[in-house]
């Protein structure tokens, strides 16, 4: 199947050249549609010390449909939903913006960029976005606090 072939290719590429700050695992070796990525917070960001587990799910019709990104580690961030889904949906991840030549490593690079520079105007958590815009210090405190609490284990 074309999709599987492409995923295998991407997996091979990403394992030989992992994107910055990311390690990739397949929780279930026989299921190549579900990846587990551990991403280090971008240096010089409030998330720098954290390790975030991100679940990347590749739909059956990947790469025609975008992969789903969900943070398994709680994170205080305007663009990540503060629920058990930990979803992120912006830029190329939106179904109408997604283009098949985008690769998972591009997606991971985007996620990392958004961690380094939140996009409050495109937020899922509007409350956090407001705080980010109006009270940066409080936002950074909260974010660091959450990193301490949730992203330091493992």
């Amino acid at each position, binding site marked *: 199947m*074309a999709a599987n072939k492409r995923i295998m290719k*991407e997996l091979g590429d990403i394992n030989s050249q992992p994107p910055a700050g990311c390690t990739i695992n397949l929780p279930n070796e026989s299921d190549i549609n579900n990846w587990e990525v551990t991403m280090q917070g971008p240096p010089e960001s409030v998330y720098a010390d954290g390790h975030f587990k991100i679940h990347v799910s590749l739909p059956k*019709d990947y*790469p*025609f449909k975008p992969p789903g990104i969900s943070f398994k580690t709680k994170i205080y961030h305007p663009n990540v939903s503060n629920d058990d889904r930990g979803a992120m949906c912006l830029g190329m991840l939106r179904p109408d913006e997604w*283009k098949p030549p985008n*690769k998972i490593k591009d997606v991971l690079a985007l996620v990392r960029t958004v961690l380094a520079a939140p996009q409050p105007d495109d937020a899922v958590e509007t409350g956090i976005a407001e705080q980010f815009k109006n009270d940066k210090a409080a936002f950074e405190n909260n974010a660091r606090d959450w990193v301490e609490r949730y992203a330091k284990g493992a």
Partner: protein
Amino acid sequence: MIDAGEIREEELTSLSSIFPEIIVQGCESASIDLPVSPSSPLLIRFVPPPTLSEPVANGDGAAAYIERDLHLSHLPALKLKIDLPDGYPSEKPPTAHLATDHDWLPATKLRELEKQIVDLWDDYGRCQIIFAYIDFLQVDAERGFDLDQSPSGCLTLPNTLEQPLINFDKAAKLAIFNAGTYDCGVCLERKSGESCYQLERCGHVFCRQCLHDFFNDAIKEGNVTAVKCLEPSCGKDLPGPRARRTQRPLHPRELLAMGMEEPTVRRYVEMKRKKRLESDKNTIYCPREHCQHPARNAKFPPIPADLNDYPESDSDSESPDAQAPNPSKPSSDSDERLAVCENPKCKLAFCRVCFKSWHGSFERCRPRDPNELSAEDKASYEFIAENTTSCPECTSPVEKTEGCNHMTCVQCGGHFCYLCGGWVDPGNPYRHFNSPGTQCDQRLFDAFPDAGPGNADGQDIEAAARAEGDWMFDDEEDGENEMPEGEEARLQRHRNEPREPLQEIQVLGPGPQENQALDNAPRAAAPGREALLADVLPQADRPRGRGRGNPFVPGRANGAAAAVRAHEDARRR
């Protein structure tokens, strides 16, 4: 000494190893096709044949003289045949014969090039010259034979050659493309040019399989906006907010060219059209409940049978259609009201204002759904329905300000009765009001004149009658139902006219003063007129105000015509 024949043979043998495609015949001649692919595309101007281009001189002939400039990268090969005479190479020069398919290279140029072989042979000291000559031709071809150095800066050819040369150019490009290999960004595999497709507008290359899979999926799901180049960066290199818009949807021709199936491509085009029709607020739909197809619309022409002919200017970026007719405003041009259902099985001709089947250009109508009207429009329609009678000839609503019930239409000059809206014989208009047994008998003046200041002033009946008569008189003279200035001469003439109508009114209908009084008095206090009206119109509920002057509001046009005209006037203003 070596035999000249051997020298020739040796030369041809070595040429054959340099140019495997060369065809050698004995040791007398050789021929070879030299591809012409100038390093910078050659500018060619295609003009109509001379006979057609003659009428350029006359006034509007500029449009008749259509020329097209094209840059072509590949042109039909230069066919070279070289004859080697017996004395070659030491004594006689070789002779070259040049030709091109479609004769695209001018004969003068060919002769000039042919002559070069002799010059070269001389310059090189009369030795074996064929390789040098072929090399010379190739270099010259690379430079486009310096045709752009000509006075016109381009090669001018008859336009009959346009299509063959374009086709040749395309085929050559395709052959080069097919010979290459490309990385498909979707399946991430390297594929041969043959199994890939290059998008026309942006030049991005993907493998056909991935394009098929993606576009088939998108079309199946109805996501027609996704049918464009897949490259993420495509169309985004341009600055500004319009960047995303520059990525235009693919033409169905391209989908067919990449090998997609016609029904799928047709579905794509149909869905696109449907989306655009539905998003256009001016689109109207067939009033037949079982049909509901949109009406034919010049802005969205039907899909051609051959999808390759689909219009080029199709894009997602909707232009603001400021000049498009607004269906909520009826227009003076009746043809704008005519709509025809585009369903080939229905083809209902209907009116886009009243949504009834087509009633012809002269019928006035009003929108079917009163909720579509603004309060102001609604008031206009209602006023017109209550206060006017439509001319039976042109359906223009006519409002009587004063005078008798014999009306002359301001629009078409038609004669009619203000009471019943019926046609009146212009030769003898009063017979209509003097025919016992009819509803309008003896009622020439049977109406409430407007409670204008003149009447309120309490003029005597004679003055009022004079005024009315004068108006009537004026009406007949000029065909205008306006209240004229009270000119003494006219009044005088009027007094000399037969007075029967005035007499009748005095006997049978209430005069203006009485009417004035009636307006203020309870209805029951107006026995004469009320009784009369009751005879004709048994309904208890008669229109009030001036509308009472017209109890016979015709059912058909019902004054809506004036509403239509009121809109038109408002629009003109």
